[in-house]
């Protein structure tokens, strides 16, 4: 969210023409606001930073803190303390004086969370659940961003700027440049962000890593429902035909993706978050110590 806003603030100034009344409305929609008549920069900033009626930076960090509180026994103290400190820093505001600094502080704070997870947590279920959540969310954000932009952008002179912004939202602009000599345009950017298994922000990469976490949680011999649905999702995003089909097939792909994500959400809920379903006769695993939460 912070990155999306930061990049679009830049983009609005980079365009040679006035971004128009629809520009901020579209940014709001990309951020997840379903119905909005916001068309002014200041209004959009205020809502995306601190809005309570829809997705905002402050709400997202607050929700992350609430989630961290719920699983605090499983988190290293330093990790929880960082999330907590980030929450307080974000709530204190101060973005009016230095919006870019404020947003960068959040972005770097989130990277630090990632680093703490990787560098301080045991390689156990708790870490895998965090990674599962992270990669599913990242996958969804990328698909939403790409599908949303592809549906609204016209093939005009400013499109390259817009697709550059899309890459920057996904921290993928520099790697794109290093990897491709082709101009920044809808078709290659879409292919890169959705299908490239080597890009850590691509939907395909995220689906693979989420699947890996599910397999680690389930154990070698178990094929759970989340595992089965994620295998299909991963297959969809690794399908060479889908990657080659181009923008024309994007809408159908997005629809199939949405259907699978809905199935996945239901599968995750029923498989991992109903502790009452654990049968009393299941033999205990002496290697496992994590209580269900």
């Amino acid at each position, binding site marked *: 969210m912070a990155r999306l806003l930061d990049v679009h603030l830049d983009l609005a100034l980079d365009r040679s023409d006035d971004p128009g009344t629809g520009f901020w409305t579209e940014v709001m929609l990309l951020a997840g606001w379903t119905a909005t008549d916001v068309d002014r920069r200041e209004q959009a900033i205020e809502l995306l930073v601190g809005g309570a009626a829809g997705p905002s930076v402050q709400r997202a960090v607050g929700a992350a803190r609430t989630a961290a509180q719920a699983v605090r026994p499983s988190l290293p103290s330093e990790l929880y303390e960082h999330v907590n400190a980030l929450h307080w820093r974000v709530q204190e505001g101060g973005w009016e004086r230095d919006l870019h600094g404020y947003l960068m502080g959040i972005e770097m704070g989130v990277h630090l969370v990632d680093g703490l997870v990787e560098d301080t947590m045991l390689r156990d279920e708790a870490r895998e659940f965090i990674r599962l959540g992270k990669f599913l969310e990242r996958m969804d954000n990328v698909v939403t961003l790409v599908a949303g932009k592809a549906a609204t952008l016209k093939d005009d002179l400013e499109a390259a700027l817009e697709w550059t912004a899309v890459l920057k939202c996904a921290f993928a602009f520099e790697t794109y440049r290093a990897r491709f000599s082709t101009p920044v345009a809808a078709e290659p950017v879409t292919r890169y962000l959705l299908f490239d298994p080597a890009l850590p922000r691509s939907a395909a990469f995220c689906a693979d890593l989420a699947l890996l976490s599910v397999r680690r949680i389930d154990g070698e011999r178990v094929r759970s429902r989340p595992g089965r649905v994620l295998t299909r999702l991963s297959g969809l995003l690794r399908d060479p035909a889908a990657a080659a089909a181009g923008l024309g097939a994007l809408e159908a792909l997005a629809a199939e993706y949405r259907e699978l994500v809905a199935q996945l959400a239901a599968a995750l809920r029923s498989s991992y978050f109903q502790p*009452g379903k654990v049968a*009393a006769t299941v033999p205990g695993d002496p290697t496992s110590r994590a209580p269900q939460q």
Partner: protein
Amino acid sequence: MPPAKLLGAQYQSNGFYDEMLAAPAQPRPAYRRLYDRLNELGTDELAHRHDLAMRMFRNHGITFAVYPDEQGIEKVFPFDLIPRVIAARTWKRLEAGLKQRVHALNLFLEDVYGPKRILRQGVVPAEIVLSSSLYLREVDGLPAPHGVRCHIAGIDLVRDHKGEFLVLEDNLRTPSGVSYVLANREVMKRVLPSLFGGYPVRPVEGYCHQLLDNLRWLAPKDVDDPTVVLLTPGINNSAYFEHLFLAKQMGIELVEGTDLLVDGDRVFMRTTKGLRRVHVIYRRVDDEWVDPVFGRPDSLVGVPGLVHAYVAGGVTIANGLGTGVADDKAVYALIPKIIRYYLDEEPILPNVPTYLCSLEADRKYVLEHLERLVVKAVAGSGGYGMMIGPEASAAERERFRKRIEAEPRAFIAQPVVALSVQPVFDDGRLRPCHQDLRPFVLTGKEVSVTPGGLTRVALKSGSLIVNSSQGGGSRDTWVLAGSHDEDSDTA
């Protein structure tokens, strides 16, 4: 320009025993260096360090919730930067007194849930002990592992107008506050490391190691690697931070009632890989809530069947069920007799004189002197359910009079103790605030006392109530090691 002096002649102790200052600008020996350093730092620097400390508490999530606050807003436990210093000699006596008291209380518990010799011999009135709402008949006759029922105790001490330590009350059920002892030290070391220079302050980190050793010791002998868990009522409990902190420090699982199930006589923890046997439960849930089959049927934080498993010996619970009878405030008055009976020793630490409203002569005195006494509900805690006579309105005193007459066993009364004070740094100046001390006593193979304890400070001006739920705060407590040139905290 030198920093403004903190503790000049303008600071007044208002006639109370001041633990830091024998007279204006005259620190007691154990506080001399601290006094000088605080003055060197000056008010601005101290204010800055105080902000740092509070930010650290907030960011670390070291908070508590106050029940009447329906918003459930977490609060940082107010903290004062000026540590309390206890000289080695003073601590030695306190430690001996605390060990003596808790040892005797464990013998008492084992007796009253066993042969009841002390009651049969009339040393203490059986009707007072057996009529306690905290006495559990369900565990009568049940042997306790190693003969220990109270494994963790918090004993509240106060200092009177002469500076003498007195026991104010015993907490033998689920005493809380030890996490703040450890957190306060951690914050002090980071925010004001210079204050420690020259002071041989005894560390407090050993508490969690000792507690874990003791809990593991309680497991059945045939279990090599017992599973110990900490049972919490959950995230909305006012002491949740402490539950979490202790579980993490000990490396044991923090579980809620729904994480456990009882199968036959055994207790299991649900895990994502199936069920895992639990051998020892450090419970932070009160007796009545611990099992809906046994206590309150509406308990959502308990484990159905847990008491059955406990009675059958399938699991050890620490503290054991029924320990509350020994911290019933009516039983408190009998503790000097209890110590003499079991240990044949004089109590090292005296009680505050206590009137039992269940005894006719005491009740008569109490009702005639309500305006001078503190009246407490025998099963109350947290500073609730009490009346401080000199501060109470006539209507409040009348309300308590009626309650005492209707249910004399439910109340005790004590004279108002002129609690000692120590300066608190507040809003750029120092003012005297009353304080108490809750040391934590662990019983395993041996009885041990963590050096220091939780010093709670009544931050509201003139208030005697130190409880966090009623505006109290805390400060770090330094127990000095060995013999020291400042080994005296009295003038």
